[in-house]
């Protein structure tokens, strides 16, 4: 029996690893359609574990994880591109695995690459692309199957500041355009506030949720939003919650 209509719902989730480490304890978290939720927390608090549970890569030790999404996609910390495939072939992989015809998956891949601004770079191999562009390919690959739920595991953590800001602007544009439910892991408070409809703050290990802070602004959000005092105030609020519990 489904207890919720949320796209993603974790109820009373605890995760212990065979090594004895407890990564998460008593986590209740839901992401509804049209929501973009960011999770911030000190390193090692189980943020990535949360995402692996949501994706089904790991099972909860206690509690339940409900996903009500036709397609879930996952963006890794590292772009995780297949080095021997061109940008387009990397995006086409998803269609290959699900058995789409060649013309279908090629068209879908082209559309996804156009969407992330990589028109003209389809034939480039990952090693010929910059870090930011590799991450764009990775995002195109996640969006090509038109997911209802998109999971992001600190995708911009390794990028330089300028690229990172541009990628944030880009991602919230895509969120507005495509309307997937998003769960985004990050260790940057400003990034979480800029991207999200709601920011979830986790404590240090074992991770549990200590605060949920809604973010009011409409999408698409202009890059200048980051310099407004309301924005700074909200960032301060999240940071405070973070410091209190780390």
């Amino acid at each position: 029996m489904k207890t919720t209509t949320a796209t993603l719902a974790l109820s009373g989730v605890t995760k212990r690893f065979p090594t004895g480490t407890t990564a998460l304890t008593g986590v209740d978290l839901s992401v509804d359609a049209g929501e973009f939720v960011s999770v911030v927390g000190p390193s090692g608090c189980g943020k990535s574990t949360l995402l692996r549970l949501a994706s089904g890569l790991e099972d909860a030790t206690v509690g339940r994880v409900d996903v009500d999404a036709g397609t879930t996609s996952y963006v890794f910390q590292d772009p995780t591109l297949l080095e021997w495939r061109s940008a387009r072939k990397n995006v086409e992989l998803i269609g290959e695995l699900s058995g789409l015809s060649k013309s279908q998956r090629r068209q879908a891949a082209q559309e996804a690459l156009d969407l992330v601004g990589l028109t003209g770079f389809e034939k480039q191999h990952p090693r010929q692309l910059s870090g930011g562009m590799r991450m764009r390919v990775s995002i195109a690959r996640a969006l090509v199957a038109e997911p209802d739920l998109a999971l992001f595991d600190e995708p911009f953590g390794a990028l330089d500041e300028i690229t990172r800001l541009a990628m944030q602007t880009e991602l919230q544009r895509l969120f507005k355009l495509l309307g997937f439910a998003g769960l985004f892991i990050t260790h940057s408070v400003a990034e979480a506030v800029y991207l999200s409809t709601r920011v979830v703050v986790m404590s240090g290990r074992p991770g549990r949720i200590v605060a949920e802070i809604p973010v009011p602004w409409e999408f698409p959000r202009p890059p200048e939003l980051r310099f407004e005092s309301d924005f700074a105030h909200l960032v301060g609020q999240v940071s405070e919650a973070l410091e209190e519990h780390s």
Partner: protein
Amino acid sequence: MSTELMVEPDIAAATEADPVEPTKRRQPPVLRRIVAKVVPMIAALAGLAGLWYLVTYVVLSEDKRFLLPPPHQVFGETLGRPEIMQPMLAALWQSVQVALAGLLISVVIGMAWAMLMAQTRLLEKVLYPYAVILQTVPILALTPLIGIWMGYGISARIVVCVIIAVFPMIANTLFGLQSATAPAHDLFTLNRATRLQRLLKLQLPAAMPAIFTGLRNAAGLSVIGVIVGDFYFQQGSPGIGGLLRVYTLRLSMEPLFMAIILTALFGVVVFSAFAALDRAVIGKWYGER
């Protein structure tokens, strides 16, 4: 070209931060590249010839000079004499065929073995020790036994080649198959890839560089294998290794040196051919640098 690379205005900032353009790097002129490669090679050959003459005429006394006849004598006494060169080239050709057959079989067995081991930890634990045993038992200890079992013909020589050349194929392919990263495996898991899809679209392509390293090593070893096989199995038509032994027993120094030179050339050619293939295929595979 540049119009193709135009990007939408809203990502222009990001593109400025990512200044990657698919332009070709400037290459030095062809002639200079060839000269840069050939000159050191000629210098090394000249140095070797010089050293050879030095040993022949300075180090060795007159009565011992037959141990190392000078280069011009080695080439003069062999190249111009069809009764020596014809059987030698025929033997070399036979050895080339045996080595290539052995290499081909090693590649097939080695890759299949590794792909099997890459499926589960248990299979790896069961099968890997046999690969290691093949590698560690000295080939000279096995060769007489192979002769007894299989006779002294071509097939026994191929088996010697395979035993000596298969290990680098197994070890490198396995290493390559296991080199795909954990997130890449997660990607395939999340997209419900079948075992076959995972093997064909992730593990094997990821293994290509390692497979080519294995191929290069196996190629060199199969040359050694065929010489060992020829050397031991004297019945039937001789390979180049068989002639090496005949010349040694007769103390025919000039043909012996010529045969050694041909054998070395054979090894170098096989190794270089696979190294070139490696660069060509892997370079294309991963996109031009």
